């Protein structure tokens, strides 16, 4: 392990804490690269980042289950409330209320079905997952269900990729043994920030145009 890391650890900081803090810039850069090079959009950088760490905290299986329950409940409740013509804040509060109840039911049912892992997941990641729904719902309102659904799937894909990065032993070894690699991210992000090339998804989107260029 790197000397710097050892120094930090010797002050009583937990190794997972150090690891996660050092991982965050890598995941953030990964999300930026997905956007700029591949064209996977996601909801900004915060949502996929938090989702990644929530998945890490509760495990991918339960994380995904909880996410899907939240997403479906939120969407259904939004559609029901549409007819009541409520203002934004109270409407969102209602959505969160119903989702909270749904999660409570999920945990209970999970315990009943002997899925003890589900009942014992820590509360903070669940709270984070619940509050993320605001982003999803407001996008549905603003850009329509279709776009919001696409963005949700893309966000989910990035978060799952991020999750596998975090649990990858090779990556963990790299970060803890050579934390100086974090400096590379400066160069990578400056490059991404000035990159004006065509994104991978745009090759697909504009394929008919590309076919028609004759020069």
């Amino acid at each position, binding site marked *: 392990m790197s000397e710097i890391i050892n120094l930090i650890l010797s002050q009583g900081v937990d190794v997972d804490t150090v690891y996660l803090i050092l991982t965050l810039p890598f995941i953030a850069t990964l999300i930026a690269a997905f956007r700029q090079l591949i*064209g996977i959009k996601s909801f900004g950088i915060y949502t996929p980042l938090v989702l990644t760490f929530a998945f890490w905290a509760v495990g991918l299986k339960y994380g995904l289950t909880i996410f899907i329950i939240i997403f479906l409940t939120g969407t259904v409740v939004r559609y029901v409330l549409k007819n009541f013509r409520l203002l934004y804040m109270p409407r969102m509060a209602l959505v969160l209320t119903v989702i909270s109840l749904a999660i409570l039911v999920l945990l209970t049912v999970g315990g009943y079905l002997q899925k003890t892992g589900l009942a014992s997941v820590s509360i903070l990641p669940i709270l984070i997952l619940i509050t993320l729904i605001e982003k999803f719902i407001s996008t549905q309102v603003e850009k329509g269900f279709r776009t919001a659904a696409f963005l949700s799937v893309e966000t989910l894909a990035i978060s799952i990729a991020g999750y596998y990065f975090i649990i990858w032993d090779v990556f963990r070894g790299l970060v803890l043994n050579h934390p100086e690699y974090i400096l590379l991210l400066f160069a990578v992000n400056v490059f991404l920030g000035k990159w004006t*090339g*065509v994104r991978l998804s745009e090759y697909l989107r504009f394929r008919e145009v590309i076919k*028609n260029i004759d020069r």
Partner: protein
Amino acid sequence: MFTLIKNSKGILGMNARNFSYIRPNNFQGAIRLANNKLRSKEVLLKAEVPIPKVYGIIKNRLELEIFKWGDLPKTFVLKPNRGKGGEGIKVIFGQKKDLSWVSTQGKTITIKNLKDHIRDIFEGFYSFSGTSDIAFFEERIQLLKVLKPYSYEGIPDVRVIIYNKVPVMAMLRLPTRESGGKSNLHLGGVGLGVDIANGVTTNAIMRDQLIEKHPDTKLILSGIKIPNWKEILEIAIKCQEASGLGYIGVDVAIDSGRGPVVLEINAHAGLSIQIANLAPLKYRLQKISGLKVKNEARGIRIAQDLFGGEIEEEIEEISGKQVLGIIEAIKIKHKVKENEETNKDRKDKLNIEKQEDKPEEMELRAKIDTGADLSSIDKSLAKNLGYAEIIDEFDEAIKNIKIDTALTKEILDEQIKDKLEKWGDGIDTVIIKSSHGATFRLVIKMNITLSGVEIISKMSVTDRSNLEFPIIIGRKSLGKFLVDPSKKSKAIFGKEVNVTNNKNNLEK
């Protein structure tokens, strides 16, 4: 794969749009202006850009209570200032006698209904995240008759991208059932690429996929001529100058009474316009960056010259010659029946005028063949055109003559000398030599009309009955024309014929 990457360099992607065009050209102040409908209206009005009139603005509850409803015209649109995606727009179609109105769906709208709606706008029902908003009344655009069959409920508009005072690319946006009568592409509206030179639509897209017909009205979408085209481009350029946006998307609708009016200006114009035009935006932007463009007329001229598709009209202007495609419709005249005419002349002059005033004409498709020297016509067609007697006599006369490559026209002509004399000026002969040997053919001078120009063409008569085209037009008849092999032959018997469609037939 390599060419794919090379070709894609012309495409304007998100990264390049944001970094190379929006960032350096559109400053924050100008972007804020574009996002505020009422403020951008003020600026555009000052620049003498035609916009829908604003009949009134209601900013708060007090103004709502003292608003004079009687001052509103019979038809108008009620809009939230910062409404997103066209939500919260109420279209009022007509007025009743008792100060109530009728909506486009035929419902009665009272003052109370309007007040409720405006209160909703204040509360932020229609603006994103529920921030409070203000309401205004706007002139309703009257749908143009020519665009009516292509629109589902709403009003189509033309999106023009302007950069450096040059209209770079344009697209006609049509409302559909899926888009809810709105012309926004991301809602499912249809986008039609437009030839910037003449305002004629080319390709069509819906949700970024190429389509041919309108999803609701099933009409073919290419070839629609947008009226007031130059004016639309001029107005769009004015918007760029007035707004301070270097890279701008201007939405222009055409009112049946007032002509083009600007609906909206956009700082972040979408990229799908490239698919609708099947043309790369970045190449076009690169071509005009750095140019000094003096005025609107110059900007339009540059766009037409650089990005216009159909330049043939201009070539015709310069050279004075018509441009032909490979397949053209021609009119061919029947042989004048001299004897009959003189006979009838004696009988009844009036009658003759009625019958012989217009000589009989045939309309057919001909192949323009610059590889052939002489034009040629199918034997049975020539017979139908009144040359049956001559052709039969010619065939009879040369029946016993053995033709070989050593013979010349003079020797052969000598043998049928008396016949040639009898037939007169319009008839000649020719020897056609090919790898199969030589043939001796009759040549007839015929009056044909090609692309509106009447010419006298010498036609060799031969059997073309197993070929697609009964007539080919060779070099000697084409002196007055230019030939463009890529030109689609238009209006052949009222139908457009694509040259490639006939490829199989040509190969026969």
